[in-house]
């Protein structure tokens, strides 16, 4: 199982930094970076935003390994629809949160039948949800796109995301 230390090491090398380089950017010792990467210790929580900024990743990616970046997979590396999940995440400015998790096979079937699987809610986020073309989302996934495929924000601060993982 990949640990936080493994991820720090992976992303550091991906950026072409040595442990000393990373340590210098974060004003810590290279021994501290070495300890992080061997999981002997963890970065201080106050350093996490800066560390993630330097490595070019989100804190979610560092802590959980899950990435919501949009990625393209060639046919030989693509997963079948039965292995993928579509998540619709709605965050209203007032603090309401809605999460809908649907297997991609169900989404595709619904699209073929002509049923809208997107939650029917009111408000600005309801309008944003209605504007999502699920048929296009399914096409994008079938063509190899994974990750955050739709991201919208209303003037009031409501956000809607469609993520496939």
């Amino acid at each position, binding site marked *: 199982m990949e640990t936080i230390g493994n991820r720090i090491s992976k992303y550091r090398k991906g950026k072409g930094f040595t442990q000393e380089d990373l340590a210098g950017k974060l004003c810590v010792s290279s021994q501290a970076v070495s300890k992080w990467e061997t999981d002997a210790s963890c970065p201080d929580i106050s350093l996490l935003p800066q560390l993630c900024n330097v490595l070019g990743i989100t804190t979610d990616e560092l802590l959980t390994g899950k990435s919501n970046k949009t990625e393209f997979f060639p046919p030989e590396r693509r997963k079948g629809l039965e292995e993928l999940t579509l998540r619709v995440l709605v965050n209203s400015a007032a*603090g309401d949160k809605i999460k809908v998790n649907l297997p991609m096979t169900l989404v595709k079937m619904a699209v073929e*039948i002509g049923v809208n699987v997107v939650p029917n809610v009111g408000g600005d986020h309801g309008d944003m949800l209605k504007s999502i073309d699920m048929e296009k989302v399914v096409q994008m996934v079938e063509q190899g796109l994974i990750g955050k495929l739709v991201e919208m924000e209303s003037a009031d601060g409501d956000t809607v995301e469609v993520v496939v993982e």
Partner: protein
Amino acid sequence: MRITVTGSNKNIHLRVPTSLIFSKASAWIAVTMGRKYAGDSFPNLSVEDMERLLAEFRHIKRTHKDWCLVEVESNSGSYVRVTL
């Protein structure tokens, strides 16, 4: 299917047999009642289409244990979760 509602006043935990909800009879009822009471806002679904959808839900329940379909958290602290 489990439906959980928690709020400041009450907590509700419902267990509904999926064999009841996702049956062919349910498909017929859903389409018939939907057309009757929802009118134009009900999608143009045949009973066979609804049966296909519900069969897929039955498949999801068999292959994915405790699949969380919907989770809603309001700013007032109320929480709703629907799990297959």
